[in-house]
Every structure is written in structure tokens, then in C-alpha cells.
């Protein structure tokens, strides 16, 4: 299978007949978890990720007393792949959560100052929990997109003194940017987007690029044990900027 996929790519084709810069069919659903303040599921081809956003009241970080807190966590549930094991998150889950976190945080997509309740004492903590339902490749882009969609779907609950009124809301979570993560893979001298599970095993390296609405880059992560030269990086970033615009339209 791997050899076949590799041969196809050298001939300019992909195993599922996609173009090199074509993503798999994408569906985004929002709000299917009623108990969560925000939720979304993303299906990217057969890859499926569900993200729930919960808001709790807690203390701010000492170096950002008037800002809410964003925490991203990822769970590679064993149901999603025979390679996933139960137990504490492994390095792939940790890396995925941290790269998604970086994209959301560095793009300043949430106005964290608006999540302050009492400066220095009480702020909203937004927990973004990523659950992988089916691992058919490119988990990172699917997880980042589902996280953004869930944040766009999230509402801030009303507060009654110390109590959080979970059924009543005072407004939407203030999301001001829509950072889109695009992973570009390199095979030989070819570049492709949205690698499937079969393709991931033949990619020498991948570069995940998080692009903000204004085309600025807000996070990068090279993955895989291959090598890239500077020209590769430039090409990959260009592809990511182009694709990010197309996908951003679909998340609104």
C-alpha cells in the first residue's frame, strides 16, 4: 500500500484521486453537545474529531491578571485507532494539543480580556477538549478546525454570585480572528495538503502552518523526521496561505 501510494505520487496522482492541493470532503457541525458551552465536530474525509468547550470560573495567571485563561487538551481515545492506547496522553496527543493551543493563543483569536470577571481574582477559564473519534489522517488540521468551530459556537454562561447558571447565557465567546491550520506534506519534490492516513506514512516531513485572517502566520510546527530546505518552507507556507482562505469560508 505504501509503495503503491508512493508510486502514484511520483506519477502526479494521489491514492484517493485527489489533486495535490485538494482537501477531502469537509463537514463541520456545531452545537451537538448541549451540556458543553460550545461544541463542534469536524469530518475531514473519514477523519472525525469532536471538540467541546467548557467554561469554568477560576483564577487568572499571575502575569495576566485581567485576562481569561485558555486551556487546550487532546484525548486520543482508543476507539479511534488500533494504535491508540488508554492512559495519560502520549507525546503525539501532547504535541497536537500544544500546536492547536499555540495557533489559537498566538493569533489572539479570543479576546481574553473580555473573559475577566474580577481582575486578579476571578476569570473565565475556557477548556478546549479535543476528542479524536476516527483517525484517518491529518488529525491536527481537523482538531484545530473543530476547536475553532467550537469556540465560535461557545456562549458565556450567566453568573449568579458564585454560581454558574449553565442554562442561561450572557453572550457569545468573543472570537475575533479565525486562525486556520494547514498541514502541508512533502514527498520527494512534491507537496500535498490534508494527507490521509495512508499518505502520512510515506511523507518525509510535514509543516503545519497556522494562518490568520490577515494572512499573517501565527504558528509553525515541522513534523516528521525528514529534512526541509528554505525553498521548501516558502512553497509550503504559500500553499497554506492559499488553502487557509478556502477553509476559513467554510467555518463561518
Amino acid at each position, binding site marked *: 500500500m505504501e509503495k503503491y501510494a508512493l508510486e502514484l505520487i511520483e506519477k502526479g496522482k494521489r491514492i484517493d484521486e485527489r489533486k495535490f492541493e485538494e482537501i477531502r470532503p469537509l463537514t463541520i457541525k456545531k452545537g451537538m453537545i448541549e451540556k458543553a458551552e460550545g461544541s463542534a465536530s469536524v469530518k475531514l474525509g473519514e477523519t472525525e474529531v469532536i471538540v467541546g468547550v467548557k467554561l469554568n470560573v477560576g483564577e487568572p495567571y499571575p*502575569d*495576566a491578571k485581567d485576562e481569561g485563561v485558555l486551556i487546550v487538551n487532546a484525548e486520543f481515545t482508543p476507539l479511534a485507532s488500533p494504535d491508540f492506547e488508554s492512559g495519560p496522553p502520549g*507525546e*503525539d496527543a*501532547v*504535541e497536537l*494539543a*500544544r500546536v492547536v493551543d*499555540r495557533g489559537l*493563543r*498566538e*493569533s*489572539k483569536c479570543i479576546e481574553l480580556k473580555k473573559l475577566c470577571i474580577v481582575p486578579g481574582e476571578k476569570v473565565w477559564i475556557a477548556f478546549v477538549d479535543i476528542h479524536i473519534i476516527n483517525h484517518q489522517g491529518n488529525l491536527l488540521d481537523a482538531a484545530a478546525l473543530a476547536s475553532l468551530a467550537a469556540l465560535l459556537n461557545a456562549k458565556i454562561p450567566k453568573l449568579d454570585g458564585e454560581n454558574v447558571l449553565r442554562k442561561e447565557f450572557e453572550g457569545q465567546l468573543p472570537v475575533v480572528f479565525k486562525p486556520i491550520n494547514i498541514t502541508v506534506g512533502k514527498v520527494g519534490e512534491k507537496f500535498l495538503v490534508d494527507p490521509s492516513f495512508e499518505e502520512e506514512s510515506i511523507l518525509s516531513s510535514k*509543516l503545519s502552518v497556522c494562518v*490568520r485572517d490577515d*494572512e*499573517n*502566520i*501565527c*504558528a*509553525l*510546527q*515541522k*513534523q*516528521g*523526521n*525528514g*529534512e*526541509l*530546505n*528554505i525553498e521548501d*518552507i*516558502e512553497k509550503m*507556507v*504559500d500553499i497554506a*496561505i492559499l488553502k487557509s482562505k478556502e477553509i476559513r469560508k467554510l467555518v463561518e
Partner: protein
Amino acid sequence: MSETDEKMIVDGKRLDGRLPNQLRPIKMEVKIINRANGSALVNFGGTYAIASVHGPRALFPRWMQESDTGILRCRYNMAPFSVEDRKSPGPDRRSVEISKVARLAMEPAIFLEDFPKATIDVFIEVLQADGSTRVTGINAASLALADAGVPMKDLVTACSVGKINGTLIVDLNGKEDNNSEADMAVAMLPTKKKITLLQMDGVVSKEELMTLVNLAEKSCEKIYELQKQALKEKYKRI
């Protein structure tokens, strides 16, 4: 990362007096731990990292062995006393991620296929953190691998670059790291200029991004010379 109103660049110079493209004083020493097969110490200003290499050695448990190649394992760890507020010992999410990317940064340099069923274990300890700890650690690890006599295509050389007050700079110290608009870690195989680690966070335009990568490449060339010098020093001592 948060931007402060404090000016980090005054009259074209950084707060510690450096020019934007100037590295901090660098110290490198090889073979500092005699129980390890290879070891090295690297200081970038106030960031101190030591690395040691055990192996190639037999890998146990057996199910972890690969019949056609050796494997590389890497652990990046920060000492509890390395930062201002004590860090609780043991791995946290940050060090788990850095251990992974450091391993992937070094793997392409090593002829792992020469060591089926074996492991090469790399341990990076950050003794004091003042910014750019992962790249300092990777520089030390690469020296330790060379010191251990592990066959390699090239050394791995790493450095950090970033953007602060709109200026692009190299080798961020801790304060700059905390106040930067963007920071990027780059590792490469310097002879063929192949990039093996690339991470960035913060907001930059595409043009700035490419300038940063080029800036990192130039700095890596300087660091590479120092690494070669450190390895030669070792034999002078014998």
C-alpha cells in the same frame, strides 16, 4: 507571550547591549561526564544545558526493538532550580513536546540503520533557563552524539530567532522570549542547510518569516564553527 510597553530595543541595541543579529557569549565543552558514552555542555549566555548520550546499546524490553534499524530516544528535562519559580520535577507537557521535536531534529543526522535492535539514548538537562533552552539543548545533544562516536551525516546545529518591537533578532534571552511578538526555533544540518526542526509562535508576515529562517541559517553557521572547535579541543586535552 505578552507584549509590554517596555522598549526592548533602544538605539538599535537590545537591552543586554547586543545588536539584533548578535549571539550571546557561547561556551561549549565536550566530554564532561565520564560515565556516559558522550557528553557536552553548552552555555548560551545565561542558559546552561548539558547533554549525555548512552549507547548505541541493546534495547529492552525486546518488543521495542526494530529489526532493521536502531532507534533514537530523547529526554529533555528542566531542573527544578533552573527557573525563577521552582518548576516541579518530572515531565510536563512542554518537555514532552520538546523531547519529541528534539528527537526528530536529530534523527535525520544519525545512521540509525547501522544499529538494528539497538537504542541511542540522549538526555538533555537544562540547568539554568534564560531563553532558547531547546536549541541550546539540541546543540549540546549533537556534540554529545559526536563525542560518543555515533556515526552522523553532519552535526545538528540549532538557534532561536524572533521578532521584538518589530525588529528581527537572533538568540532570544529569557526576557526577550517573554516579551517577543514571535519566536522561532530552528535546527539544521549545516553543511547542506537542511532544516530538521522548525517551530514558531507569534504573529509574523510571510516575508518576515522567510527573513527569520535566513537569519537562523546564518547564525547556525557561526554556531557550527564553535561546535567543531569544541570537538577539536577535546583531543587537545588528551
